[in-house]
């Protein structure tokens, strides 16, 4: 336990130093042995450690067989030839870990041996701003407004494409007020000596409580009105002419000047907190007004997610600015300096050229600092907070066809807001966990430690779900997408990169075999019938989703369940004349299709539709996930599948040759779709080909996300509701179809 961290943090590997650091269990310092570059910032009360590590992990690679077909392996059960082979390989990826812990873990002797990389104030500020810009740009739901008296305390903000200008108010011991205009233009415009140190210092004098967090605890219990002189104490009521409410503080601590009595520690701590927060709020507002800024981000150890502090600061800003200025907070405010220092140190790796994603498995999330609020979380990680970011190999950008990128919200339901939906989905994911664990183990039958890893995965994901039950806001707005993504991240952490690889392989094999006959029967139909059959096929294909419990149960128990059976299941498909109106007008220039599942979905549902579009003279961009998620088709699988189809079908073949059918990756490894974080190559192609139709398929991409997404061009969102609760909620039956065709107003 001790050695691991000791090796990393002490430069010389001096064994006596190893003993003087007590570190918590392995999971805190993940991948430390592969660390490439370090930054450590030992502050007055907290130590922040950052390291960049190259992570070795397993990936499932698919590879086409030799076309001779001789080496094709047979599936043991169905005797079916596999369309391609799967290999588990070791791969490298990069991630950055940030760890924050209280200095009690470091004994005095150690500190001098570690060089503090940050010395001068300007450097500190540069790091802070760099870190702030970085999280504002890269981390979804980084920013939130705090509203104590509403149902959802945390109002997470959509990442705005333009983050500048803003005011950063960093409340450490003192207060720094910085105006940030661009990525490298910022100015220290003011400050105050009345900050967190004042609260701590005066608080210690007043209450004899030495610990900062304890002071805040006192404050959260106290009644400031016992110590403060209020407007009503002076006036006997409200000050009508000025419109000042009677409950407004007229004079902080004003009552203690003349009343000869003992004041309670709680009350004094609360009054002090109000005094300092109000003061900072007032000053910040004046600066914002002077510089015409409307957004103020508050950071620094004084805030540290303490609800009582965020509440008073928000109140103060609203009061003094009359609502013109917004007080905003950051989920990772405690890491800004460390992130900035790290970015500075890692410049040769060009961190700004990549996109980054928060790894939900490796991050502890925003948690209430109060131990009574989340005992479970605290017991698990002590006072350690972790934040892990994955470096995504390719930059992510907005889909150029979004109607308004600044108001686009991918997710359809905000589960932080909707308590009923939240309960349902959390339970749903809990109940599905056994199945996922089983599937994960089955995907690696030859591995000796698969069972053990699968069990660890179960624990980790279970714990995440429990945390989210108590603190739904821990990772930003809670959504079905974030629950799904968290599960993928946890699976990856325990080296289950693609639990459905074998299932997908098998289903792709079966579907490929059926492809010619499906095409043959479609080609025998008249135009109108064919359009309807194509849409029906598209929807029936979407039934084959292992992520939906209702489907996976059927697929497990009825091996013969196929395309035709799926068509029978569909509800409410009869009057879909919309299908033809999509295809009635002049052909589209280029259609962008976001595909969903492997197997029947992509091969028998999507491809015949693609083929029809191509025959009409449209170009098609088929976008699949970069990495695996459930049984969703990945980009590399789509390459092989397309190649095999092309070998059977001359229309697909020639379109591929003529580059009228293009395969791209989305940049995502999620069962859902965030149109504001798509692979740059995809965005370029969409623009280049003048895409005028977007088709989004599947529950994850078209219902849980993007159901309300507004695009500049025609769009079709279609899916089959494979969840009875959701069907109920939408007023339909399970296996009802969603077919949402939208033409933007000119």
């Amino acid at each position: 336990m001790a050695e691991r961290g000791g090796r990393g943090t002490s430069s010389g590997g001096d064994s006596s130093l190893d003993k003087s650091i007590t570190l918590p269990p392995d999971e805190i310092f993940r991948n430390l042995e592969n660390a490439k570059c370090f930054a450590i910032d030992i502050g007055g009360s907290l130590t922040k450690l950052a390291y960049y590590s190259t992570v070795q992990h397993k990936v499932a690679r698919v590879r086409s067989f030799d076309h001779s077909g001789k080496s094709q392996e047979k599936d043991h059960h169905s005797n079916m030839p596999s369309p391609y082979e799967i290999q588990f390989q070791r791969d490298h990826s990069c991630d950055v870990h940030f760890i924050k812990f209280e200095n009690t873990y470091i004994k005095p002797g150690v500190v001098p041996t570690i060089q503090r990389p940050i010395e001068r104030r300007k450097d500190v500020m540069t790091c802070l701003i760099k870190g702030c810009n970085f999280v504002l740009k890269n981390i979804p739901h980084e920013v939130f407004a705090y509203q104590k008296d509403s149902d959802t305390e945390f109002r997470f903000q959509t990442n705005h494409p333009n983050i500048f200008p803003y005011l950063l108010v960093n409340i450490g011991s003192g207060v720094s007020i910085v105006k940030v205009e661009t990525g490298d233009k910022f100015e220290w415009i003011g400050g105050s000596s009345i900050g967190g140190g004042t609260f701590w210092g005066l608080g210690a004098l007043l209450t004899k409580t030495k610990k900062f967090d304890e002071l805040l605890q006192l404050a959260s219990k106290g009644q400031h009105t016992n110590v403060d002189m209020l407007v009503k104490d002076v006036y006997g009521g409200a000050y009508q002419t000025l419109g000042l409410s009677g409950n407004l503080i007229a004079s902080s601590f004003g009552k203690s000047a003349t009343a000869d009595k003992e004041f309670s520690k709680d009350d004094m701590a609360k009054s002090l907190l109000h005094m300092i927060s109000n003061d900072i709020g007032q000053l910040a507002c004046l600066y914002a007004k002077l510089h015409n800024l409307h957004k103020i981000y508050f950071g620094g150890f004084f805030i540290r997610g303490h609800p009582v502090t965020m509440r008073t600061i928000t109140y103060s800003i609203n009061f003094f600015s009359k609502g013109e200025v917004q007080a905003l907070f950051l989920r990772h405010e405690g890491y800004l300096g460390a992130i900035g220092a790290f970015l500075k140190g890692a410049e040769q790796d060009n961190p700004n050229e990549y996109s980054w994603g928060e790894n939900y498995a490796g991050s502890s999330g925003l948690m209430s600092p109060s131990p009574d609020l989340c005992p479970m979380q605290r017991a698990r990680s002590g006072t350690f907070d972790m934040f892990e970011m994955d470096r995504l190999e390719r930059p992510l950008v907005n889909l150029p066809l979004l109607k308004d990128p600044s108001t686009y919200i991918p997710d359809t339901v905000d589960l932080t807001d909707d308590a009923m939906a939240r309960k349902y989905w959390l339970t749903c994911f809990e109940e599905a966990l056994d199945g996922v664990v089983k599937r994960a183990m089955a995907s690696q039958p030859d591995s000796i430690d698969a069972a053990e890893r699968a069990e660890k995965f179960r624990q980790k994901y279970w714990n995440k779900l429990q945390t989210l039950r108590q603190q739904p806001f821990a990772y930003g707005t809670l959504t079905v997408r974030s629950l799904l993504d968290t599960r993928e991240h946890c699976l990856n952490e325990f080296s289950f990169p693609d639990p459905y690889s074998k299932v997908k392989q098998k289903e792709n094999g079966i579907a490929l075999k059926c492809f010619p006959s499906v095409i043959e029967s479609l080609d025998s139909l008249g135009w109108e019938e064919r359009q309807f059959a194509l849409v029906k096929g598209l929807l029936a294909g979407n039934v084959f989703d292992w992520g939906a419990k209702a489907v996976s149960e059927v697929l497990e128990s009825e091996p013969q369940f196929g395309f035709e059976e799926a068509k029978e299941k569909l509800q409410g498909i009869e009057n879909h004349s919309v299908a033809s109106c999509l295809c009635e007008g002049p052909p589209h220039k280029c259609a962008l299709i976001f595909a969903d599942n492997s197997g029947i979905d992509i091969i028998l549902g999507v491809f015949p539709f693609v083929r029809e579009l191509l025959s009409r003279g449209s170009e098609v961009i088929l976008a699949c996930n970069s990495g695996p998620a459930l049984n969703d088709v990945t980009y590399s699988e789509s390459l092989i599948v397309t190649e095999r189809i092309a070998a059977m079908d001359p229309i697909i073949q020639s379109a591929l040759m003529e580059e009228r059918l293009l395969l791209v990756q989305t940049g995502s490894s999620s069962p859902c779709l965030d149109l504001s974080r798509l692979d740059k190559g995809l965005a370029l192609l969409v623009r280049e080909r003048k895409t005028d139709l977007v088709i989004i398929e599947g529950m994850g991409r078209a219902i849980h996300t993007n159901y309300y997404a507004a695009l500049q061009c025609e769009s079709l969102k279609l899916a089959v509701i494979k969840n009875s609760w959701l069907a109920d909620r939408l007023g339909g039956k399970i296996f009802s179809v969603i077919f949402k065709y939208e033409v933007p107003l000119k």
Partner: protein
Amino acid sequence: MCGVFFFLLVFPWFGLDIGGTLVKLVYFEPKDITAEEEEEEVENLKSIRKYLTSNVAYGSTGIRDVHLELKDLTLCGRKGNLHFIRFPTHDMPAFIQMGSEKHFSSLHTTLCATGGGAYKFEQDFRTVGDLQLCKLDELDCLIKGVLYIDSVGFNGDSECYYFENPTDSEKCQKLPFNLENPYPLLLVNIGSGVSILAVYSKDNYKRVTGTSFGNMMSKEKRESVSKEDLARATLITITNNIGSIARMCALNENINRVVFVGNFLRINTISMRLLAYALDYWSKGQLKALFLEHEGYFGAVGAFLELLNSA
């Protein structure tokens, strides 16, 4: 304004400002009382006049600021001196009780009062003291008081002053400032809390902001740190804070003269010099901190002037 009707305005003439912590009382002592008048003067009135003018302290907490007394003023045709008296607001009930015992109500005078206490204690004045208060807006009174006192001057000297070389205790000098063309000015009143007003003319002003972080007083003692150090640190912190908020308001309102008033500054040269320095330094000489001799009494003076106005 009252001219020939001056006789209608019966003595005594008071102005009262009942703040959160302190009550400020302004009393006009007529010096041109004729022998006949003296004879006619009712006993009550005489005893009040003698009591107020022959003492410098009243009870254990009331104090007359003798050094602030304004001599030989002519008001409504009467010559006399203006006295400045203060006592803690928590002694207000005792004050009302005294008024009742001395049958103050029999004098048929109007009691003009401003400050929050004018509202808070109105009921007590009526029920205990049988007195009807004339309640006045505190910001109106404050501004009127400042303008009036500055116009009459301080017994021949200037009411308004500033500090030159505020940081250098050797070279620091208190110098008179001519506030003849006062507008626009930022008026910062530091009492229990802080009010900041932008004043554009006699009756055109707005409250820019207020803060509750004013004259904080705490009784806490610590052995490890000396009381003196703590008190000084607190004083400096609060003063700097007020200075920086005042500066930001001045910038936002585009006003370069900042007048500080209020009892926080009473015998508080440390704060005044600090404010003078901070304003000058942070504004690179653009802003000037000004002070007035009668620090906390302007509200009471304003109330007093309203009394004369009402005649």
